[in-house]
């Protein structure tokens, strides 16, 4: 207030003076200097309302003003515009101009907390501009990093979990038990919502933060790297601009035949064998009427003399010829079509800039499931005073999706407890057929003498009556306030609110099998009167759930920056508060009518006899309530000092705390820090290398850590639904007191060299990084006599060391009318377990390379296997080693694996080399980009036949055909013979032996993008530019090391389908 009063007094004085000295002219003259180099600036434009002049060769100027208080505006193409108010004649003005940051080759890096030119960075950053992002299409912005971002590894084989929701990692993950995803920042704050709510057309650029400097800026959650998404923005003093884009993407049907499924013929032969051995006798006599496969029903009818031998043989032959996948591809799957549209308007004046954008996407999926997304993005920045800037922004996303047809399970159709691969879904005319999936038809056809609802299930039409509708509404609103206190000092307060509401309705109407089955099971028919009592009322069943997320972020920050001739200092300090609350509730309505909006009351308190077994069961109420709150509190600071633009030193620190449960406050805080140094060698006066025109060395070293969310110093219980019999409150032990657990700590060193050759014909960077991890979390065997409901518990189990190289090279191979540019990205990464803190009785098990390997000196994620001694030539049994002896005692072999030496190291499960080569060709208005990715130097375990799984669950494998059948076969195959009854541990041994480990190396054609640009010349000024493009992605494997024709990125499922996109992008 006092400031304002002061200004008011001054203004009054000025007005007073103006009256006194009316019509008096003022002269202003002086020099214009570069604020950093202190060199004079010639050619700058100095203007007032009435006059305009330019500075001389020595930067001096002279101008006459009409009255005191007039503003001088100084502009220059390479400098930021300056404004100066002149109140009296002054002949010695020194006007300092700040160079414009966005120079031609200068990239402005955003960490989400601050922005700075890449030239000043000491840490490891990767910047992906809008043009590169536009090389790929699709509705998920992060997928556009595929094949264009350095050290980003996409891997769809790892399963997703709460700790791992994204399918990529940056420089390997640094933890196993903690969060494994890179941190996603949208502009200034971590984005907590569904990444699919972000419209890729709203994103201007992406910055990837890779080293310790990243973690020390963003704290605990940044250990796996940070991805900063920067949205498009309006700019001050920019005329109105409009952008428009539209495209259509077609994805091919998934190739179900890629699944290594057993043939129907082989499957039925096995069924026949099992049947003749009596393996199904319990199932056939099952009082619960569990459904039997069609072949089994035929065997039974034949055995009971209901059909002659010849009929049964021809029926079985028909079944053997059929593969359910053909029905799925014919009647269920279709090509998926995605349409996207977006429009944005941006611009700005002296005091305000704005952006309005809208987008609409519509997807019709493989299963005819439909989803749509509408986004609106508004952002306005005001500059009410010269030293103050206020930003208001909001993004609203509305999504709506509807389920489609049932997907293929991967193994066949589930019949009873088994998967059957030869079920027909339609008759010869394409009419839906009923499939006995739960109970035998012989039972359901007659049960209740017509008093029950029809009990048939038609997979082809049932989906029409069972629909899941999900509606999402997400809002992100923010206010940023920036106030310049002094020339060097500004404060910055940012607040952001994020909310997401997802409502899901799963309606099984009365025509759906699910509902009819439920009603029938809870029906009672009075044996005397024949009256039917429905305990589940006649009508639809609606399962509804609401999930809400609300996040509040607040950050206060002071920025200090001072630039002098030879040196500059940039520093920030601040604090941050964050709260994320997620709630969900769900319940089930019975007897529901969507037309009348009515539902019926149901007795949840008493158990009723179910129709088939007579076993008493409760009607599920579907109630689920939960509320989670995560709070974070952080303090951070960082500073960078540059001398003569040659040397930069930087340091940063952060302390994070969260409301971890069962931990005392002191343990909740974790410090992070980093130091950095950069040396621009090419700026040294002794450096006279015109070939290597630019050379800059930079290095950082820092420390970060991870805490296990399940860490607790005390025992914690979790309240669960009351037992339905008692309705007493019930709780179970959720976390066992584990006070000895410590923070994981990771120290990271990064040394980078930026260079360019021949005036940026070839430019790029080479980075070496080293990670040293201690106290890494891992599952450690625990004596379960202690009563924990697991045989392992998380402990600090190992130390590791990782080394890597990131190479990124851009080269302009041919310049001129025909241009050819190449972007080459290569990451080399190796790590190893340096020590393993084993505990007594530890069991080292072979596996898939997804947990830390106890083998010291070998990669952290080593694939360990049972040593294989081939197949027994007389029986086809797989053989292993017990000590030095060849053995078939599989249990003993498994139990003797108590030391790492008893297992064989079969290779690393993560690639040693990966990267991409992107070639861009420009000719006239055409531009063609071809992106090839590769992963080299790693292994994976392939799936194979598991006879136990085949016998009990009907899950077979095409390796069955390669099995040992007669002596001599062992020379050509490693697949064991089939033995019934199955021998314990035989499948486990073979599946996890050396024989199933395969080389993963492969090269893939990631995408091709062709575009044609019609500039304003063609279109006579109505467009600034107009681009039409065609994109093809997931084009398949060019080369692979394995001979089994497996796709190492999708070894157990179907590869991502090829997609083709056609689109247009325009700017007005």
């Amino acid at each position, binding site marked *: 207030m006092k400031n304002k009063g002061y200004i008011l007094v001054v203004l009054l004085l000025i007005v007073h003076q103006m009256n006194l000295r009316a019509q008096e002219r003022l002269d202003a003259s002086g020099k214009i200097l570069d604020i950093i180099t202190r060199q004079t600036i010639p050619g700058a434009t100095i203007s007032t309302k009435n006059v305009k002049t330019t500075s001389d060769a020595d930067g001096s100027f002279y101008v006459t003003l009409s009255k005191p208080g007039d503003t001088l505006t100084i502009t220059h193409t390479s400098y930021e515009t300056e404004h100066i108010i002149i109140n009296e004649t002054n002949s010695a003005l020194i006007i300092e101009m700040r160079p414009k940051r966005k120079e031609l080759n200068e990239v402005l890096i955003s960490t989400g907390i601050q922005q700075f030119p890449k030239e000043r960075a000491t840490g490891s950053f990767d910047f992906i501009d809008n043009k590169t992002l536009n090389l790929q299409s699709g509705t998920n912005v992060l997928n556009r990093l595929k094949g264009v971002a350095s050290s980003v590894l996409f891997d769809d084989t790892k399963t997703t979990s709460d700790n791992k929701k994204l399918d990529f990692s940056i420089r390997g993950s640094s933890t196993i038990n903690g969060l494994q995803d890179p941190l996603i920042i949208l502009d200034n704050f971590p984005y907590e919502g569904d990444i699919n709510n972000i419209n890729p057309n709203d994103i201007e650029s992406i910055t990837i933060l890779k080293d310790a400097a990243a973690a020390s800026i963003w704290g605990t959650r940044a250990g796996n790297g940070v991805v900063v998404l920067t949205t498009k923005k309006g700019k001050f003093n920019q005329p109105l601009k409009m952008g428009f884009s539209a495209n259509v993407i077609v994805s091919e049907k998934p190739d179900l035949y890629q699944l290594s499924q057993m043939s129907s013929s082989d499957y039925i032969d096995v069924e026949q064998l099992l049947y003749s051995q009596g*393996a199904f006798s319990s199932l056939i006599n099952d*009082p619960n009427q569990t459904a039997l496969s069609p072949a089994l029903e035929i065997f039974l009818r034949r055995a009971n003399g209901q059909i002659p031998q010849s009929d049964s043989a021809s029926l079985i032959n028909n079944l053997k010829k059929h593969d359910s996948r053909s029905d799925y591809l014919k009647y269920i799957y279709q090509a998926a079509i995605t349409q996207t549209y977006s429009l944005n308007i941006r611009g700005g004046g002296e005091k305000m800039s704005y952006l309005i954008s809208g987008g609409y996407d519509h997807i019709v999926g493989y299963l005819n499931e439909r989803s749509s997304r509408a986004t609106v993005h508004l952002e306005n920045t005001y500059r009410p005073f010269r030293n103050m800037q206020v930003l208001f922004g909001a993004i609203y996303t509305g999504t709506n999706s509807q389920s489609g047809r049932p997907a293929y399970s991967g193994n066949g159709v589930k019949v009873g407890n088994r998967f059957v691969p030869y079920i027909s879904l339609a008759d010869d005319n394409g009419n839906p057929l009923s499939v006995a999936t739960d109970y035998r038809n012989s039972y359901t056809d007659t049960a209740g003498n017509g008093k029950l609802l029809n009990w048939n299930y038609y997979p082809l039409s049932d989906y029409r009556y069972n629909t899941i509708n999900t509606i999402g509404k997400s809002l992100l609103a923010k206010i940023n306030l920036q106030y310049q206190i002094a020339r060097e000092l500004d404060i910055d307060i940012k607040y952001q609110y994020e909310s997401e509401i997802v409502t899901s309705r799963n309606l099984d109407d009365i025509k759906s099998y699910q509902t009819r089955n439920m009603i029938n099971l809870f029906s009672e028919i009075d044996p005397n009167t024949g009256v039917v009592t429905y305990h589940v009322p006649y009508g639809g069943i609606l399962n509804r759930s609401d999930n809400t997320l609300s996040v509040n972020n607040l950050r206060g920050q002071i920025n200090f920056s001072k630039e002098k001739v030879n040196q500059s200092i940039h520093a920030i300090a601040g604090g941050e508060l964050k709260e994320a609350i997620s709630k969900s509730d769900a319940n089930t309505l019975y007897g529901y009518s969507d037309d009348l909006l009515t539902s019926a009351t149901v007795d949840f308190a008493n158990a009723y006899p179910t129709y088939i077994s007579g076993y008493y069961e409760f009607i599920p109420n579907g109630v689920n309530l939960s509320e989670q709150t995560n709070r974070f509190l952080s303090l951070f600071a960082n500073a960078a000092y540059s001398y003569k633009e040659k040397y930069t030193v930087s340091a940063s620190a952060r302390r994070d705390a*969260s409301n971890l449960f069962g931990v005392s*406050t002191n343990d*909740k805080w974790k410090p992070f820090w980093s130091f950095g140094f950069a040396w621009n060698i090419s700026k040294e006066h002794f450096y006279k290398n015109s070939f290597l025109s630019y050379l800059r060395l930079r290095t950082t070293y820092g420390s970060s850590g991870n805490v296990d969310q399940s860490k607790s110093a005390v025992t914690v219980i979790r309240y669960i639904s009351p*037992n339905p019999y008692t309705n007493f*409150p019930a709780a179970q032990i959720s976390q066992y007191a584990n006070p000895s657990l410590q923070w994981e700590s990771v120290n990271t060193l990064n040394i980078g060299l930026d260079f360019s050759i021949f005036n940026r014909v070839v430019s790029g960077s080479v980075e070496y990084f080293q990670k040293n991890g201690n106290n890494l979390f891992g599952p450690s065997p625990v004596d379960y006599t202690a009563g924990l409901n697991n045989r392992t518990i998380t402990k600090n189990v190992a130390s590791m060391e990782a080394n890597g190289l990131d190479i990124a090279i851009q080269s302009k191979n041919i310049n001129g009318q025909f241009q050819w540019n190449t972007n080459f990205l290569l990451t080399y990464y190796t790590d190893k377990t340096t020590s393993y803190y084993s505990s*007594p*009785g530890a069991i080292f098990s072979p596996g898939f390379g997804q947990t830390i390997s106890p083998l010291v000196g070998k990669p952290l994620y080593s694939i360990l296997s049972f040593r294989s001694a081939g197949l027994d030539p007389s029986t086809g049994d797989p053989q292993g080693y017990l000590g030095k002896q060849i053995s078939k005692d599989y249990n003993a072999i498994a139990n003797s694996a108590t030391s790492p030496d008893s297992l064989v190291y079969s290779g690393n499960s993560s690639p040693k080399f990966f990267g991409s080569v992107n070639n861009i060709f420009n000719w006239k208005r055409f531009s063609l980009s071809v992106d090839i990715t590769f992963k080299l130097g790693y292994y994976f375990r392939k799936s194979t036949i598991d006879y136990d799984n085949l016998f009990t669950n009907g899950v077979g494998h095409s390796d069955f055909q390669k099995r040992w059948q007669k002596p001599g076969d062992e020379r050509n195959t490693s697949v064991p013979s089939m033995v019934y009854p199955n021998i314990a541990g035989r499948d486990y041994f073979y599946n996890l032996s050396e024989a199933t480990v395969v080389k993963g190396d492969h090269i893939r054609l990631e995408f091709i993008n062709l575009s044609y640009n019609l500039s304003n010349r063609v279109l006579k000024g109505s467009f600034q530019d107009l681009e039409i493009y065609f994109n093809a992605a997931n084009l398949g494997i060019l080369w692979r090391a394995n001979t089994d024709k497996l796709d190492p990125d999708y070894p157990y499922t179907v590869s991502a389908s090829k997609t083709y996109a056609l689109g247009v992008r325009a700017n007005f």
Partner: protein
Amino acid sequence: MSRQNIKFFIFILLILSASACKKYLDKKPDKSLQVPSSIQDLQAVLDNGNLMNGHYGVSFDESSADNFYLKDDVFNSFNQENRNAYVWSNINYSNYPNDWSYVYWVVNAANVVLDNLQNISFTEQDETSWKNVKGSALFFRAYGFLQGAYIFCKAYDENTADQDLGMALRLSSDFNVPSKRASLSETYSRILEDLKDAASLLPDFPQHDFRPSKVSTFALLARTFLSMRMYDSCYNYANLALQLKSDLMDYNDISQTASYPFARFNKEVYFDNTIAQPNYYLSHPYYALVDTVLFQSYDTNDLRRVLYFSSVTNGHSFKGSYAQYNPFIGLATDEVYLMRAECEARRGDKNDALADLNTLMSRRWIKGLFIPFSAATPKDALDIILRERRKELIFRNIRWMDIKRLNLDGENISLKRIENGQAFELEPNDSHFALPLPSDITALPGMPQNPY
């Protein structure tokens, strides 16, 4: 610096000041989580019926006992661990979870309650609740140890119990404390001590059959003493239990057409405990056929013949569980009547013994067709009682222990199985009657395998 700056600093300082920050960070991350700090919290842990009364997967003993047999084809369709268990050769196994882990889940839940209860004092108002929690936890722990001893240890013989291997007596919830197998006598002393303490704390009757009570503790004490062959003490506790509750169902009132004739929580039940997910499922009625000789020993006028069994292809399967589909392994009045009768017969009290037996049996026979049992000598009475005990308590996880203890009394029961033409036999008092511990447990120091 201007005043605005200072205000900003104060703002930052305020939000970060120690107390505010502690409060801010002390918010529970999940509403359903709780550090157990009240009597209600601990009662809730014990009221988790899924674990304490239902997810008891123990079935190693019943699967090894002689109430049932498997046809070759059914036997062959099992995995090898089940097949090995059936013929008493499941020595080297490490599947998880297993009977050992099931037993200790319950023991650990009880220990968590007991450890935390030490820090919770009670007032006059909640003294009963506090005592109920403590008594229940002791009961559950003792039940766990006893169940484990029946499976993994030899029968109690006072001459060798000091040397025989018992259970690992885990009395604290700290998993860092190494386990060590105690002697069998220490094991039984601990069980008796816990149960006696429980009896002094628990109310006479439970609010629900899922909760322990004084009457069910007396019944469990009687069962414990019976397996220790201490018949006087067994008699005392059986007597105390029956004094509190001696209700019996009349099987004439039970519907013979229902798939599962007996209602759950019926009036005979003291304490409900079931096997919801049997670890060895071969003894489950779904697969197991009732031993033919045993089935034939039920009199045609004996209602149990129709209420306990249903006719299936090739034989009979069991449907008489007091918990419907799942096998009932809890405590009920019929067992206690039979225990009291046995103790009375053993001390020579023939008439009391027969009176107790006939009280029970008169409610098992078709009305009007029951001829009361009579015997010339106490030994004859004992034989009748043991025969009826076997028939009454079939598939209640009692037979395995009965074989072990009766063989110590010279009953000379040997077991025989024939599968795929091969015969397997288990001689009386064979070391395999103490079933093997999982091999990953016996790899630990202090946890020796039973000697075979």
